[in-house]
């Protein structure tokens, strides 16, 4: 049993009467169970957009608070995971829009902190993180639709149909956007690599 599940159990035991009599408390218990189950994937989705641990956690918490506020709709949701990913995705995009562009060094540092790199030495890990940050900045320069598809495609948990549901488009358009995005990104990276070497 995880810590969060223990907390949830303690909460339910302590407030059993309140939960039984108060529908709001019962809904809160439901939302807490959702948080226990989906907080990790939601955090990854938020981090893929924001690339900041604190902001990503804030986005996840805000997502569950929104769910708690609109708890009466919980019964109508068919695919809870896609619904939650969609909420946190929009939440992260809103936050990203309000943020200023992060410098390359900060982004590399965030990536180094986020990615467990026990196999690499510190300098090699830093070089790798800088390369990854450069690629991610190139992704940020892509058109919005292609960028979003590319970022979501990195989520191995999400199938194409789920990505299409999150973005509100068809599966074929997801595939075509993904193909165009990778192609455009390769071209840009080749050009930038040539400039750096030349």
């Amino acid at each position, binding site marked *: 049993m995880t810590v969060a599940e223990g907390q949830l159990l303690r909460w339910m035991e302590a407030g059993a009467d309140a939960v039984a009599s108060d529908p709001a408390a019962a809904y809160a218990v439901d939302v807490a169970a959702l948080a226990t189950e989906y907080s990790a994937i939601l955090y990854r989705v938020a981090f893929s957009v924001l690339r900041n641990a604190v902001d990503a956690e804030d986005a996840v918490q805000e997502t569950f608070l929104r769910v708690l506020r609109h708890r009466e709709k919980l019964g109508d949701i068919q695919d809870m995971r896609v619904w939650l990913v969609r909420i946190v995705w929009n939440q992260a995009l809103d936050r990203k829009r309000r943020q200023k562009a992060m410098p390359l060094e900060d982004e590399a540092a965030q990536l180094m902190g*986020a990615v467990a790199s026990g196999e690499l030495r510190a300098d090699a890990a830093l070089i790798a993180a800088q390369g*990854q940050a450069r690629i991610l900045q190139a992704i940020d320069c892509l058109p919005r639709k292609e960028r979003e598809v590319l970022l979501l495609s990195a989520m191995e948990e999400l199938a194409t149909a789920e990505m299409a549901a999150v973005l509100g488009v068809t599966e074929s358009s997801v595939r075509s956007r993904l193909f165009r995005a990778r192609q455009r990104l390769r071209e840009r990276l080749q050009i930038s690599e040539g400039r750096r070497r030349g």
Partner: protein
Amino acid sequence: MKHSVKTAMEASMEAGMEAGMETESMLDATMLDARIDDALRAASHAAPAPELAQRIVLRLESAAVEDRAGRFRWPRVLVPAAGCAAVALLMVAGMRMHERAQAGAKSAMTSRTETVAAVPGEAVPETDAEEATARRASARNAEEDGAGLKARGSKYAARRVSRPVRQTFPDNYPLTHQERLLVQLAKTVNPAELQMLNPVYRAAQEAKEDAAFEAYLHSSAAASDSSTATNATPAKNQNNVQATQASQAETPQAETSQEGTTL
């Protein structure tokens, strides 16, 4: 021959170079894809901070508590707000009533002036009683002929009708005939007539007049008695003439006193 071999070797070398470049570009593309995948994986496979779920659950718990408390927040705010609003309404109503009372007092004080201004052609009453009587009569006329008021369009008249007549002391009943005479007498300011209003002085004057009348009667009776003897003594006749002249001298004073009594 040599030339052909050389050309073939060059061609094969060019082909080999092109193939190598293609291979290199394919390798580059594969490497780029790998690097892109690595970067995306690094961005999306970030490990969440430990106990993230626990923090979220705690936050949800506090939010649920706030939500439960929020249900009773409105009544807690609304009840004092409603009380304050009721007190404010009462204060405003009290102030309005006070202002109306003050305005009524002022209108009673200035009603005479307003009446004069309202009907320019109307005679100005001289006393309060007459003014009150005239105001009441005009109000009655206005009530009887409301349509006439509207037709005239006089806002002053409408104001007079709508405004309640304030009770004053002394009451505004019309004067009796005697009271009017008294008022007229007071306006003439004749001391002799005013003195006649004093009952003691009046009784003394009447007694004096009675005495003069009695004296006149006695003198006339004596004159008739002596007339029989006049023929004998002309000196007596002369005495009678003197008495008559004396009584005639007293007569104007008696007439003036008679006028006073008639008044």
